[in-house]
């Protein structure tokens, strides 16, 4: 398989086969590697914009009393921080990884629909410019939480709602196009012999994620449209006075929202399942059960949405149904964690930065899973709901889960992308600073929540003061630690020790058979898979 590298002379006569020069290369590109890079850089930018908003939130919460921002602006910060991080940082980062890696992993020359690929990226900057610009409107941007519950987002919101709805529509279109591209690519462009059950788990998890996206992004589009028509066109979907029901909003939103949670974690499972075997020098334990576990998590994700709304007043039977279904998710998720641990068992491990982030992922994501299980227990949820315990829970699964997996992936594949090894010492500094600060940031939130501090408040009772100061210190430290990552990436792009094609001793998969850096066009002739 190592003979399938592209011969630089073979395409010399076709001038359009190399990248174009300057800005046009990025604007017009249909190359999966270029588009992958664009997605990843965009997501990094959004990570810092969303992060800056988190810093505003933590600065205000450093001490009791109102110091820095007004409550109305505080609410805009929590809202836009959530939207940016979910739709601007985590999702595009995974799409970027999919673009870079899926064709290389299945032996395809590119994504199946390259021109649509260009579109699905280039509409994103418009979506987020609209969203961010709305912050400068009279009265400010959206301030109803990233969950935009009606009627707070309809009757009681200002006109930035229209911009919010429009930008979410664009984000949704982008996601759907990206998902279609992933599915079509995987179904049609696998190299001969690459059967479904031979695909790397990253490809499998993205395949399932893409179906989730196609299933639920239209639901999101529907619900934002209903918000728009309720606010501007006199409909009453969510207004009891016109025969509607505000709780209907939450049912529709969370029917999108819960699968969305898995959209942000399933690709992470794929990444960890690639990295752990490499640095354990041992094949992944239970490949088939990993595929089945991912599929069952995806299916179950459609049956648990109302666990976000236990306090809205549901019939007991519905509460029991959603409690049981939610608890069931622990089973396939447990299988995954057990499989990773079994992969490490009796391996020969080394601890480069990608492995460190993966190990941290396994421990900290599992802690987020435990708090998720606690939240599933309806009677206890009545106490946890809408407190900092929930904030701690979803930041453990999204920051130390999704974001840590993205960091791990970046370190793991950077040598393949740039052709240079990253600076290992700097990477270890980044890892340890992030690990310590992220736990100072989010772990105390569990206690603050259990002690009764509601989420989304700009000011709090005095008993919460010490812990909030500590949390804020952790927040600032975590934010600053990420600058190390930027420095490292820039350094790695500019130069560094030359990476081999194999890069990692124990790595398996087609992407390690091609040159480092990966040539602009790879697998123009499909490799044969035994």
């Amino acid at each position, binding site marked *: 398989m190592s003979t399938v590298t592209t011969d630089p002379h073979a395409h010399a006569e076709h001038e359009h086969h190399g990248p174009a020069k300057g800005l046009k290369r990025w604007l017009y590109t249909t190359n999966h590697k270029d588009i992958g890079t664009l997605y990843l850089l965009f997501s990094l930018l959004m990570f810092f914009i969303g992060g800056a908003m988190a810093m505003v939130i933590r600065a205000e919460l450093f001490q009791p009393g109102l110091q820095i921002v007004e409550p109305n602006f505080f609410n805009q910060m929590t809202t836009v921080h959530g939207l940016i991080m979910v739709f601007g940082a985590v999702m595009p980062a995974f799409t970027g990884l999919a673009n870079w890696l899926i064709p290389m992993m299945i032996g395809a020359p590119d994504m199946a629909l390259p021109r649509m690929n260009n579109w699905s990226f280039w509409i994103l900057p418009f979506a987020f410019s609209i969203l961010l610009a709305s912050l400068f409107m009279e009265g400010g941007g959206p301030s109803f939480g990233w969950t935009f519950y009606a009627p707070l987002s309809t009757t009681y919101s200002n006109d930035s709602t229209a911009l919010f709805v429009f930008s979410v529509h664009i984000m949704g279109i982008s996601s759907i196009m990206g998902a279609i591209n992933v599915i079509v690519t995987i179904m049609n462009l696998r190299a001969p012999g690459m059967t479904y059950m031979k695909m790397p788990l990253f490809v499998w998890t993205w395949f399932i994620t893409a179906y989730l996206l196609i299933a639920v992004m239209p639901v999101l589009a529907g619900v934002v449209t209903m918000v728009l028509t309720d606010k501007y066109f006199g409909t009453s979907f969510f207004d009891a006075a016109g025969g509607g029901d505000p709780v209907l909003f939450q049912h529709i939103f969370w029917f999108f929202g819960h699968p969305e949670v898995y959209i942000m974690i399933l690709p992470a499972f794929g990444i960890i399942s690639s990295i752990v075997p490499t640095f354990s020098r*041992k094949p*992944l334990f239970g490949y088939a059960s990993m595929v089945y576990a991912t599929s069952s998590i995806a299916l179950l994700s459609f049956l648990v949405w109302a666990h976000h709304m236990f306090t809205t007043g549901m019939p007991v039977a519905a509460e029991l149904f959603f*409690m049981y279904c939610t608890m069931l998710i622990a089973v396939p998720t447990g299988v995954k964690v057990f499989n990773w*641990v079994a992969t490490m068992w009796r391996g020969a491990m080394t601890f480069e930065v990608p492995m460190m982030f993966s190990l941290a992922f396994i421990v900290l994501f599992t802690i987020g899973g435990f708090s998720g299980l*606690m939240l599933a227990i309806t009677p206890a949820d009545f106490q946890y709901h809408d407190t900092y315990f929930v904030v701690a829970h979803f930041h453990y699964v999204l920051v130390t889960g999704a974001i840590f997996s993205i960091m791990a992936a970046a370190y793991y594949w950077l040598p393949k992308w740039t052709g240079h090894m990253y600076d290992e010492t700097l990477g270890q500094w980044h890892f340890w600073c992030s690990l310590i600060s992220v736990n100072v940031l989010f772990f105390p939130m569990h206690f603050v929540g259990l002690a009764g501090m509601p989420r989304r408040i700009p*000011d709090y009772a005095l008993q919460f003061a010490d812990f909030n100061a500590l949390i804020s210190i952790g927040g600032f430290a975590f934010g600053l630690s990420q600058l190390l990552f930027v420095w490292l990436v820039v350094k790695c792009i500019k130069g560094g020790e030359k990476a081999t094609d194999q890069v990692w001793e124990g790595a398996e998969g087609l992407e390690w058979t091609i040159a480092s850096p990966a040539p602009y066009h790879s697998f123009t002739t499909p490799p044969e898979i035994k």
Partner: protein
Amino acid sequence: MAIAEKTAVGVTVFDLQFAFVQRQRRSHVARTSYLCWSLLTFLLAFSTQSAEMPLNMTQGVTEISQQVYDLHMKIFYICCAIGIAVFGVMFWSIIHHRKSKGVEPAQFHESTKVELLWTAFPVVILIIMAIPATQTLIAMEDTSEADVSILITGSQWKWHYKYMDHKVEYFSLLATPRQQIDNKLSKGENYLLEVDRPLVIPTGKKVRFLVTSDDVIHSWWVPAFAVKKDANPGFINEAWTRVDHPGIYRGQCAELCGKDHGFMPVVVVAKEPADFEQWIAQESATQAAAKEAELKLLAMNMSKDELMALGEKTYMGYCAACHQPNGMGIPGVFPALKGSKMALEDLPAHIDIVLNGKTGTSMQAFDKQLTLSEIAAVVTYERNAWDNNTGDLVQAADIAKAQSK
């Protein structure tokens, strides 16, 4: 040791920094050991000071809240046990199965037996968790045969309580002074958790709460009762509690409800049944008397000073959250009253919007929230404060006339 003792009385970060700067002048070794000490005391400072903040869920004061706490602890311990087992195996691997120890990696990659086992075992654990959870949930949702029923209505940003079996109803507003929030006064013990008129309930009786909202979704939460119920506009939710011990119990709104979501606490006072009966009888009498006095007021005229004084008090309590104390509003969100056409010219429309609100906006109807004289006073205030200077005086009788239209 000296540092440890200081911690006991509550050392602050600034003390530590100060001590640190002083100590920096000493030898290098002493500095390193001091660094370790200061880190330790820093952590200790948090654990000792937070004696005020419980680190765990409250056990509460009801049978249900105790059950919820037990359930929470049971699941927590199960999670801890699983965590210790899984992470134990993982860290054993990390320590022993590393390349630097010269181990050769094994090559096994599946075992149907083991995989079936670790699929089935969690199911059994989940069933063990689900049984008590189901029992508690069914008990929590049984709102039948209540002794007392109270209608709780949330609105931006206050609670309204109405006793269904008595002619008693009132609003409950945040009592923390604005200056404390703006850091101009030192904060009181119950900062942000205090109200002007708490809800009063009898002990030992099953109290049913009917929860609804006038505008957006709120959520009525008292941790000590393990009651958190969303207040949905247009719908009524039910919850109940039976409190065994008299006392004051504090909570907050738990659902984001707009700008002042963080400023609408819940305070409940539980009284012995006899004390409760006495309180409610007195309260009914007071409210009935107030209504009569209100009717008498119709025949009387208040002076401008009286109107402005009452108007300012009412405005600050009910209007200033949106329209701001200086009448400037928040552009694009809440309109300004200073210099507005309505406040300067159109008096009937002004009275109408205060009485009936404006549908499709955040402007509430204050007809039932305020007395006739308060409405008269607040309209007068809005027409004469902040250089509006219309000179208009509005009396309770004018409001009554507008009401009957």
